[in-house]
């Protein structure tokens, strides 16, 4: 799975720590998601989507394995 989290966060002028605080997770978790090391759960993906006022599929893209 790929995502646009880094790009969207930068566009909003947020640091990883700011986004982490807004989502109630740690900065390491945001970095792990941005670098593709971790795919968030559905509830966290919804939180992220709400944060950027977008749909989940506009942020996360499934890539065939």
């Amino acid at each position, binding site marked *: 799975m790929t995502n646009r989290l*880094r790009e969207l966060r930068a566009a909003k002028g947020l640091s990883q720590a700011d986004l*982490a605080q807004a989502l*109630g*997770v*740690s*900065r*390491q*978790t945001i*970095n*792990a998601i*941005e*670098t*593709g*090391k*971790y795919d*968030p*759960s559905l509830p*966290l993906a919804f939180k992220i989507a709400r944060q950027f006022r977008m749909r989940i599929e506009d942020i996360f893209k499934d890539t065939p394995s």
Partner: protein
Amino acid sequence: MTSSTTKRLGVGVVVVIAPLLHFVVPGAFWHRTASAIAAGLMMLFFAKEPVEDERVQDLKLKAISTAFSVSFGLTLLVNWLLNRDWDVTRDFDGATMVWRSISGFDLIILVMAVALMLFHLWRWRDATASPA
């Protein structure tokens, strides 16, 4: 109890209580010391992180699963080495056969030490990873 209190308690048990039990309190024997070390390491591993999110829980589960498999494998290897001269045909009724094994506390120490190491390594990698 807060996460940092549990962690401090864990460090205290490993660094202070266990050596006291081993070197100061009379009648020292390894299992007593090992049980204290195992308890301290468990406190350290199972203490909540400052931000206990889904990634932390995911990494802790992965760390403990991997640590258990690796440690159990190592235990089997050590036990095999300890008992490699064991000959089942030597004493048919088993009266003098002794199965030597590392204790359960030793296994817990190994599991917790490997799990703590893996968890913090992966957490550090999460913090420092940069995009490909």
